[in-house]
């Protein structure tokens, strides 16, 4: 009974859209052909005629299909050629010659691949899938249907995509995976409901009801049949309605509700006759024959059985035929026509053997399919494991390579850093040794210079002692002996000259013993000198002014300090000796970066243009020049003298 349900359903799914008024279309196309159109239009017309003759006359359909193929080849029209192979393939499919159908489909597939006609390819994949489905090679059927589905989904052609999903679900049902099939049909019903595709919705409801029937869930099955009938009625979907009534009638019959079953099957028959669905008519008629037999209406049953068997024989529908022969043999048994019973039982046996063989083949195919599926699954698992192992291996290798690269980078970095460190160390050592060498050289030179300085110091000490002895001897001579006046005068001059030489020597020793002379040192030395001068001459008033702003930390080299001291000494001596001054001012004043020293007196002065510079003035000038100081003399006759020294100081 279940097989009876599947057959019309599959046929109904495959060709549901192409069954309306073929003769009208044929006439119209023939009239177009009579006007001698272009070759491409002729090919199209032949192809259309092949299609429309499919349900009326298979021979005519083949004739027009071959004409379309011949003309396409002649005119090198690849699109037409592919279409012709496709149409011929459909014809062979209709005749259940699936091998021949697949040959034609493959030829069409080859051409469409070259033409890159993706939608055409999807259509061929779908048809090849159906061929595999009908020859029970369900794995290949799923592969081809999935290929077609991918293309339709990519092209967003939801109508065909959904139909294919339904088909794949039916394959699952063929594989007895009812849960999977039911799940897909439920999803499809939901999609159809959302997109308001009522044709798909009714087909889905029909399939859901059948799936529940396989799962022996009669309650849900009835619910979905009724739902499907309601939707089909509301949307005037006669094809789907006919199938639903017939299937529902079968369900009711199995539940023993014969009267309701007859009502529904009659409705199905009426609709199918209206739309000229021959196989459907055969199925519904045979079902009615069976139902009337059950209620003892033999005559009516005979009429339906005859009608059904005739159509089933015409369309070579063995499943329907065996059902019909069985019922007819029962009928003839009721009217006690033994020969006819024997005749139909033989026929029944014959067909049933053939069906049984087919079933065995199917079962073997199913078992093989299951075995193949298991084997494939194992292979897939094995491949997955191998893949995972390879992946892990690659990941480890990558990690190792990354590690090696990292090691190389770190080693290079370390090498560079060590090299850099050594380079810096070497450079530093070189610089250091150069500096130390220079330092040693200078120190050696300084040592030599110091030795010379020491020799000079010893010499000066010696000379100082000798000069002191001379002065002492001269004093003894002067006071110990009575000498003539002129000799005393001479002795005094020598004594004074020697004393001044000793003073000069002491000043020099003072300066040479110091590395540097501070302003403080200079100040105290000058103060001493001025004090002495003050004692020597009561008539002269000395003023020594030291600017407090001057930094006491200002220092001079011993040579500069001594020269400044000598200049001041000379200037003061000149003021007392030659200018006859009563006031002598010595000023130390700080200017921006200068130390300004002025020695001013109120003496008789001189005319700078007329007076020739003596040793004293020239010495002062020379000393100032030696220390890089500016030397100025401002003087006028009877207006005193002002000597200015400007020396740059570093504060």
């Amino acid at each position: 009974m279940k097989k009876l349900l599947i057959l019309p359903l599959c046929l109904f799914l495959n060709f549901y859209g192409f069954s309306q008024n073929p003769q009208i279309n044929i006439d119209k196309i023939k009239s177009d052909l009579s006007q001698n159109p272009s070759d491409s239009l002729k090919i199209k017309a032949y192809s259309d005629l092949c299609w429309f003759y499919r349900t009326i006359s298979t021979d005519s359909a083949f004739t027009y299909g071959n004409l379309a193929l011949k003309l396409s080849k002649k005119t090198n029209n690849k699109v037409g050629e592919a279409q012709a192979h496709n149409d011929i393939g459909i014809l062979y499919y209709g005749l259940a010659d699936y091998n021949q159908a697949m040959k034609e489909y493959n030829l069409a597939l080859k051409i469409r691949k070259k033409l890159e006609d993706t939608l055409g390819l999807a259509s061929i994949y779908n048809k090849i899938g159906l061929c595999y489905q009908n020859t029970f090679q369900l794995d290949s059927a799923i592969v081809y249907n999935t290929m077609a589905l991918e293309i339709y989904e990519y092209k967003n052609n939801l109508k065909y995509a959904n139909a294919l999903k339904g088909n794949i679900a039916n394959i699952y049902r063929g594989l007895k995976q009812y849960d999977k099939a039911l799940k897909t049909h439920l999803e499809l019903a939901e999609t159809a409901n959302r997109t308001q595709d009522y044709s798909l919705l009714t087909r889905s409801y029909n399939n859901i009801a059948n799936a529940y029937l396989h799962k022996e869930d009669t309650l849900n099955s009835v619910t979905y049949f009724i739902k499907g009938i309601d939707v089909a009625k509301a949307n005037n979907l006669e094809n789907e309605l006919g199938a639903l009534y017939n299937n529902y009638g079968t369900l009711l019959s199995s539940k023993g509700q014969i009267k309701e079953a007859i009502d529904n099957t009659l409705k199905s028959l009426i609709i199918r006759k209206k739309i000229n669905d021959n196989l459907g008519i055969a199925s519904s008629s045979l079902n009615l024959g069976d139902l009337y037999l059950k209620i003892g209406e033999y005559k009516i049953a005979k009429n339906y059985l005859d009608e059904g068997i005739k159509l089933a024989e015409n369309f070579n529908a063995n499943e329907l035929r065996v059902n019909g022969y069985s019922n007819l043999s029962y009928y003839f048994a009721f009217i006690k026509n033994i020969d006819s019973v024997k005749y139909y039982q033989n026929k029944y046996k014959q067909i049933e053997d053939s069906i049984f063989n087919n079933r065995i083949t199917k079962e073997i195919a199913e078992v093989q399919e299951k075995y193949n599926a298991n084997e494939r699954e194992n292979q897939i698992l094995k491949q997955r494991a191998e893949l995972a192992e390879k992946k892990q291996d690659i990941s480890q290798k990558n990690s190792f390579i990354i590690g090696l690269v990292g090691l190389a980078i770190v080693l290079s970095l370390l090498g560079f850093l060590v090299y850099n460190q050594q380079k810096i160390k070497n450079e530093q050592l070189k610089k250091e040794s150069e500096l130390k060498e220079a330092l040693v050289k200078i120190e050696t030179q300084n040592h030599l210079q110091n030795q010379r300085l020491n020799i000079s110091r010893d010499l000066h000490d010696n000379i100082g002692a000798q000069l002191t002895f001379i002065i002492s001897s001269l004093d003894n001579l002067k006071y110990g002996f009575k000498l003539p006046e002129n000799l005393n005068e001479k002795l005094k001059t020598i004594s004074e000259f020697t004393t001044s030489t000793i003073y000069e020597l002491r000043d020099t020793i003072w300066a040479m013993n110091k590395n540097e002379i501070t302003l403080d040192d200079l100040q105290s030395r000058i103060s001493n000198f001025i004090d002495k001068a003050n004692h020597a001459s009561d008539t002269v008033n000395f003023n020594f002014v030291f600017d407090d702003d001057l930094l006491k930390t200002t220092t001079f080299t011993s040579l500069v300090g001594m020269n400044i001291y000598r200049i001041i000494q000379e200037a003061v001596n000149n003021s007392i000796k030659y200018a006859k001054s009563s006031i002598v001012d010595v000023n130390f004043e700080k200017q921006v970066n200068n130390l300004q020293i002025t020695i001013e007196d109120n003496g008789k002065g001189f005319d700078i243009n007329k007076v020739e510079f003596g040793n004293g003035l020239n010495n002062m000038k020379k000393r100032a020049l030696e220390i890089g100081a500016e030397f100025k003399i401002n003087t006028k006759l009877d207006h005193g003298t002002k000597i200015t020294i400007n020396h740059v100081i570093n504060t």
Partner: protein
Amino acid sequence: METSVFFQVVLYILICTLFLISIKTFFTTKLILKTAKEKNFFLKKELESRKVEQKQLEEKNLFLENYNLSLFNKLIEITEELFLIKKIILEECYNK
């Protein structure tokens, strides 16, 4: 597999160690640079001060060279004068 994992662990430990040594070397180099700069600075400073000292000594010696010359001249002058006085005194003694 285990050997490979062991080698990887060794490899990554080696990388980490070398990396740490690199960091240490980098900072040591920086320290060496800093120390070298300081040392050079002090040496240069000392050299400068020695140069100044050298200049002063040279100036002093140059000055003393001239001064010593003038001092000897003065000594000769004093000696001359003293010989003259000696001569006068001796002449006066003989004349008496």
